[in-house]
């Protein structure tokens, strides 16, 4: 590091020698690793074959959800007879049923979207404030609490599942006994997203890494300008950490959309169900194996609706998914 006023001083001999060396490695790095055109072509062919293998289940799902009842499993690439299985008039029993008529599927999708959105928003900002505190402040017991935080990531959710359920059960009875309070508890959607307003260990860890990468001078400068700690966090830390916040947001959206066990524990009324739980119920109802009615096209259409929002989410935030996952592994 040069001190002020030395920027234009002649470069020491050692440094002058080093510069071409780095340039050379840079150029060499671009040439390697050697790969002939033949090998390259073989690689591409193998990857195309694997891509077909990876994409085929999706194609199969899309095709199956547009096939009429009875042809769902004919495994043709395109439906022999196109059928719209999502919505329409329900005919009496021997005819195929339509997805939106047999269950409140639209309701489930909206429930899931709303819960995911609430949970992701809450966890993003709360985790950011906690992560910022762990990255910026020096306070007694900081390392102890950070160790505790890391340890909670290893804890299987099954250990706390039962007492937390009983806690929500208690809260539910309490709020029912006091009609002034809104009904919060088992068989409401609050247990699905409320825990997120306390932040989440994994995202706190992820965001802390990010905050540590922001030069401390920025914060000191804000303090000099007379910012309070909170406005420094809001004006400097949050905008700079935007990529980490987006990663948190999309990861939590995905996590809530994936979650099956929590709605399974807490929800009883069909109107409150989330999309994954609803699709599981549809499967139980229409799968012939379990004594269902055999309208497989409804299951397929529902599963397609369950998959589609995640594909759209990935398409919109691909960069953040890849970056978020890649940084996960870097903590070693």
């Amino acid at each position, binding site marked *: 590091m040069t001190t002020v006023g030395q920027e234009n001083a002649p470069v020491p001999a050692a440094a002058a020698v080093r510069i071409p060396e780095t340039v050379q490695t840079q150029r060499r790095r671009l040439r390697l690793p050697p790969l002939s055109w033949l090998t390259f072509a073989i690689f591409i062919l193998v990857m195309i074959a694997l891509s077909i293998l990876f994409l085929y*289940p999706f194609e199969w799902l899309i095709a199956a959800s547009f096939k009429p009842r009875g042809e769902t499993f004919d495994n043709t690439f395109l439906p022999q007879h196109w059928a719209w299985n999502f919505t329409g008039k329900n005919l009496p029993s021997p005819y195929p049923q339509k997805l939106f008529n047999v269950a409140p599927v639209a309701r489930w999708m909206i429930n899931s979207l709303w819960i995911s959105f609430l949970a992701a928003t809450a966890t993003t900002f709360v985790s950011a404030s906690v992560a910022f505190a762990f990255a910026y402040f020096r306070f007694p017991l*900081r390392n102890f609490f950070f160790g505790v935080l890391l340890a909670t990531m290893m804890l299987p959710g*099954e250990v706390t599942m039962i*007492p937390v359920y009983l806690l929500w059960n208690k809260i539910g009875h309490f709020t029912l006994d006091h009609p002034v309070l809104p009904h919060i508890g088992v068989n409401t959607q609050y247990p699905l997203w409320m825990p997120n307003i306390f932040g989440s260990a994994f995202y706190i860890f992820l965001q802390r890494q990010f905050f540590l990468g922001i030069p401390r001078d920025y914060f000191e400068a804000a303090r000099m300008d007379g910012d309070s700690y909170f406005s420094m966090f809001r004006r400097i830390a949050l905008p700079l950490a935007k990529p980490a916040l987006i990663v948190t947001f999309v990861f939590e959206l995905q996590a809530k959309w994936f979650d*099956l066990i929590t709605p399974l524990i807490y929800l009883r009324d069909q109107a409150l169900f989330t999309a994954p739980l609803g699709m599981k119920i549809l499967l139980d109802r229409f799968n012939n194996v379990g004594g269902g009615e055999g309208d497989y096209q409804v299951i397929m259409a529902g599963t397609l609706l369950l998959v589609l929002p995640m594909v759209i989410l990935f398409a919109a935030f691909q960069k953040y998914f*890849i970056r978020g996952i890649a940084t996960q592994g870097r903590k070693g």
Partner: protein
Amino acid sequence: MASVAATTKTTAPGPSRARRWFRGFRERETWVAYLFISPWLFGFIVLTFGPMLFSLYYSFTNYGLQQIAGLEPTKSVGFKNYHQLITDPKVTASLKNTFTYTVMMVPGRIIFALFLAMMLHRIGRWAKTSGVFRTIFYLPHMTPPVAIGVMLIFLFNGRVGIVNKGLSFIGIQGPYWTTDPSWIKPSIALMDIWSCGGTMVILLAALYAVPQQLYEAAAMDGAPGWRRFKDITLPMISPALFFSFIILTLYGLQQFAQAYTAYFGAGGTQPEAALMFSVYLFRNAFEYFNLGFASAMAWLLFAISMVVTLINIGVSRRFVFYQGSQR
């Protein structure tokens, strides 16, 4: 990572370490910091630490439906629930299922992910197509577990499933995946290998971080491809491999959603071969309401996860190579 010790360590003569440490609580910055972390602290006490203690307590009681409703008092039953863990044949069976599945899934997923990542890495510098392939290979990772469970029972259906149709093309008579007890777990593991995109991206990032000079030096020495792989690539990406290994093992031990969707619930065939430990735990807790016994199961799962992770860490000391200063 500047520690508390670093802030309290002092060379100048002054108050003792403990004094200075306690004085930290008088500083305004400390209180602001605690205010910032207070949501997590509160959540940790109410939703993690408290429930852990309660769960431990319940595991020594007969807590069940009557006790929730307040009709009967909670009675201590000593180690009965833990003894039942040994005597209940379904616990043994579900543990065996979970281990079998994990042992198939984790190496399968890591090896396949590594294969994909290395291919992407090799063509990465030549072609923008690498990004397209990466997207395709990552896509299954965005499929919700419930959707994977649904696709599992239909894709792997012994009679009409596309997997067996595909196998018959190359002259193999596919097994009855979803009904044959010995093929149920491989089919769940295969679906997990299909969604190996997350592991692949972690390994791909690790591959890009390997300094290319090492390969140059190896090429100059005339080291063949597999030597370069064994002696450069594997040691350099071993932290990422190890991380994936631990995470996937924990994920495997907690497998619930795919197995539950495909085989349990109201319309499932309930085969014992698909009874994962978490599924049996869930059924005990929220279908039979044996909450005491389920708590004991949860602590067994916790203990197993800890032991497996500690063994992994112990083994990793021998194989994982951490670069000194470079990250």
